[in-house]
């Protein structure tokens, strides 16, 4: 494999950091720390650094929680991608992971719904979701996507591509 070509592609697309593989909590933590150090050196405000970091954490933990909930945490399906790239004057944080085909429509619909919310509606939904009882077997509070939307400067973009008759590759990008 020619890593030089890969590196050139990364450079062209403004890629700052990329991880591909199965990620554990400690990897999420380490990349997060590296990301913050990197951004701190870019001379941007503390709030902007924290927004990029927060979106990264929510995306990464969402992926991990989903794979664990759907028992996809082992083997090839567990391999996921997270990227942080420059995007105009801001940043794009993206995640890509395997999902079950049957979940695809629901996830994409939920993202479209959140994208359509006005800032006031978003704040209200966030508060409602905060107050909603968490199911005993839930891995998160269902707040992750709303948290990403709160910190984003434009709509999230998702895409899906079928891997086989059971699995779909799901990509989600957020812009800060």
């Amino acid at each position: 494999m020619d890593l030089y070509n890969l590196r050139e592609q990364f450079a062209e697309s403004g890629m700052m950091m990329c991880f591909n593989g199965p990620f554990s909590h400690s990897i999420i933590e380490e990349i997060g720390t590296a990301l913050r150090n990197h951004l701190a050196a870019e001379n941007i405000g503390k709030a902007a650094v924290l927004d990029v970091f927060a979106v990264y954490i929510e995306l990464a933990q969402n992926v991990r929680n989903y794979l664990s909930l759907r028992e996809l945490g082992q083997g090839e399906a567990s391999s996921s991608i997270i990227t942080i790239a420059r995007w105009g004057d801001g940043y794009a944080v993206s995640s890509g992971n395997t999902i079950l085909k049957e979940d695809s429509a629901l996830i994409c619909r939920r993202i479209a719904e959140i994208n359509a919310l006005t800032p006031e509606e978003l704040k209200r939904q966030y508060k409602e979701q905060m107050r909603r009882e968490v199911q005993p077997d839930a891995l998160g509070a269902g707040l992750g996507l709303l948290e990403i939307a709160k910190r984003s400067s434009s709509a999230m973009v998702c895409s899906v591509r079928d891997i086989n008759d059971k699995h779909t590759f799901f990509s989600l990008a957020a812009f800060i």
Partner: protein
Amino acid sequence: MEQLEIQQTASTPLVSFDDSGKTLRIVGESYPENSFAFYTPVLAWLGRYLQQHAQLTVDITVTYMNSSSIKCMLDLLDALEEAFKKGSNVAIIWRHDLENPRSFELAEEFCEEVTFPFDIVALSA
């Protein structure tokens, strides 16, 4: 009353009870692998404490919380609110970095959820 002392890590805050000052300190950042697993013993301790004692200050210096930690923090606020309504003397002091508006905004959102004293204090650099 049993002690509560959880050491700080990169993704979990220090949680420490000081009996002499009747103060529960929460310091650091909060994005655990499993927020519910992390906060369950804290909430259990708080529940027992509030049944036996009528005074508590929760002193919080947290720069960042992920969404599931925010949910857990709300459960903590609810427990304090319930104790306050039964006449307990509870309060929160939330300290935030002046250069970190996100921590301040989070404090404001939490503050809207409760009626007991909730002070938001800027830390000088």
